């Protein structure tokens, strides 16, 4: 593919040119709280090396609440409304590779050959991913211990690398090549290409955890002692999975008033007591141990068996958000050490 260079001072112009033909979703600052993924109009200042967002990139594909349809009767007239789904190409910029990889995990759940979720798939099929190579991993990051970044990089459309005053833009797909267009793009010098390669190697050289390279799927044991330890500490909130870039579970609920029914989809998590509670009162996962175990087993075993993909990308959000400091890295280390 034809790699390009763009000066940082031209990035805004590039984004504005993308906005002309696409919906562009980018990390947008928010007053009083963490930045959010939002459609931009091309006039805002966007930091493409924004670092990790509190909410993963799935915030666009699976909004925290997503109206599926709304049915209303007014003066005898019936009205059925469906939500607006994108009708033009969409480009997501500024996401990290871990979040991009997580979208591959979500793809396997929501648009695997057997099933196609129309809400997810309509957004996803129009979506191009412009990811940025991390140059400042957080304290909680462990991507290189659960995956092969070279493989992950194949799942994006353009990969950006920060070179100081310039950004190196490497199209990965044909779709990506179409995005890296415009007079502000130059051909990279040999030195710039070298620097880009160094940044990539530096990221891959991030210190590895004891479970790196081990077959975690085979080591995730139903009877491991770590489940008891986790269950004692876990408080049963949903911070870990609501922020997880690859957690895919949802709930569907209706709001009904006298004349209106709105059906919406929202987040749900196996960590909540009522997640598996059935209408007649039976709960197959009544104990906390079963619920904390489920989250890890699902990511590292069931998803592997079902879709041949690990459902964790090492983004570290669950580690940072856990109010009692349950650290996925410690859990995985305990699992492989027990197996050894």
């Amino acid at each position: 593919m034809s790699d390009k260079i763009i000066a940082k001072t031209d990035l805004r112009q590039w984004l504005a040119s993308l906005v002309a033909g696409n919906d562009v979703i980018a990390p947008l600052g928010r007053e009083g709280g963490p930045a959010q993924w939002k459609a931009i109009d091309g006039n805002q200042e966007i930091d493409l090396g924004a670092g990790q967002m509190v909410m993963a990139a799935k915030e666009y594909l699976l909004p925290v609440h997503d109206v599926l349809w709304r049915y209303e009767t007014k003066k005898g007239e019936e009205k059925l409304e469906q939500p607006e789904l994108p009708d033009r190409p969409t480009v997501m910029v500024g996401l990290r590779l871990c979040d991009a990889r997580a979208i591959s995990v979500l793809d396997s759940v929501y648009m695997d050959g057997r099933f196609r979720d129309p809400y997810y798939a309509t957004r996803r099929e129009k979506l191009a991913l412009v990811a940025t190579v991390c140059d400042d991993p957080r304290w909680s990051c462990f991507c290189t211990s659960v995956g092969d970044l070279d493989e992950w990089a194949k799942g994006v459309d353009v990969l950006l690398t920060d070179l100081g005053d310039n950004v190196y833009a490497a199209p990965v797909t044909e779709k990506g090549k179409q995005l890296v267009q415009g007079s502000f793009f130059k051909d990279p010098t040999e030195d710039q290409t070298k620097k880009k390669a160094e940044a990539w190697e530096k990221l891959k050289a991030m210190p590895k955890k004891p479970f790196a390279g081990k077959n975690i799927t085979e080591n995730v044991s139903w009877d491991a002692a770590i489940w008891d330890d986790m269950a004692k500490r876990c408080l049963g909130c949903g911070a870990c999975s609501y922020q997880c870039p690859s957690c895919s579970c949802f709930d569907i609920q209706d709001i009904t008033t006298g004349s209106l029914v709105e059906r919406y989809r929202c987040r749900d998590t196996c960590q909540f007591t009522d997640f598996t509670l059935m209408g007649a009162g039976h709960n197959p996962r009544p104990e906390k141990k079963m619920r904390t175990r489920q989250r890890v087993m699902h990511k590292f075993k069931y998803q592997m068996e079902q879709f041949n993909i690990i459902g964790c990308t090492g983004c570290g959000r669950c580690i940072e958000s856990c109010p009692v400091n349950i650290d996925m890295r410690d859990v995985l280390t305990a699992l492989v050490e027990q197996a050894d």
Partner: protein
Amino acid sequence: MANEVETKIREEAKKLLESGEVTVVIGWGTGSAAFKTTPVFVEKPEDVEKLVWNPACTNNLAVYLPQVAQHAKVGIVVKPCDSRSIVTLIQEKQVPKENLKIIGVTCPGIVDDASLKKAGVKLSEVQGLDWDTDCVVVGAPSGKTKLPITDAVKEGCRTCTQRTPVISDVTAGSVPAVNPVPIELMEGTPEERRAYWAKQFERCIRCYACRQVCPSCYCAKCFADRNDVRWTNKKADTSEAWMFHMGRAMHLAGRCVGCGECERACPMELPIMQLNREVQRRVEALFDFVPGMDIETAPALGQFEPEDPDPNEH
């Protein structure tokens, strides 16, 4: 500075476990980073070395008591705010007092990720945390930095006036000389405040971390989870989140001890403590009651006198 207290905690925990007075001691243990601790459940005397005391001991461990101490003898390490939660839990009959052995610690104030970041600390470089007179000492590869306590600690700790536990069988540490900063009251007209809170609640993702870390939120079935009567929808939008947070704030009236754990746990940075503090301020003004200070004083909502003020008239 924290070391003597830590040693004392371990000694006391060991005594309790060796004598069989308790089957478990709940305390803070080393976390997965230098600025983190994690709750530990120590069951053997030889494991008391797992207990630590440092500026990252943020968890209000009283949250575990309704589950753990109903039918078992439990030792627990508490900060002053946590001790007030215990008083509240005893008063509300969630925990029998006779099941508890309380190891109290005096507290100069606690830090968390957000407060450290706000004070300009780069989390990935933190190697250790301790207190010194009037400051929090942050160890990093480049050396130690002293941050004034009121700059480094959690919002609730900045304004805290309770530096020694209100209830304990033994207390470790001397009374720290820390001057609290005054509480900022909620300002503006009702319309301005409405607009402000709409902006805050808009961010809520309904993960319920605030509720789950709260020792006072022990309801077997939270009103927010009920679907036989839908008080609030799960949908994460402003009006539904408004109902949840206002409902929670009202349920905590006269019961919130101000530990600040809800605000710390919130991934979306909702200023939940502003809400709780405002409610407590009004409860105090109307009923002259501060929650969790002693077991004998009946809680504001746990008693009724015909001459009680009617909040609707205030």
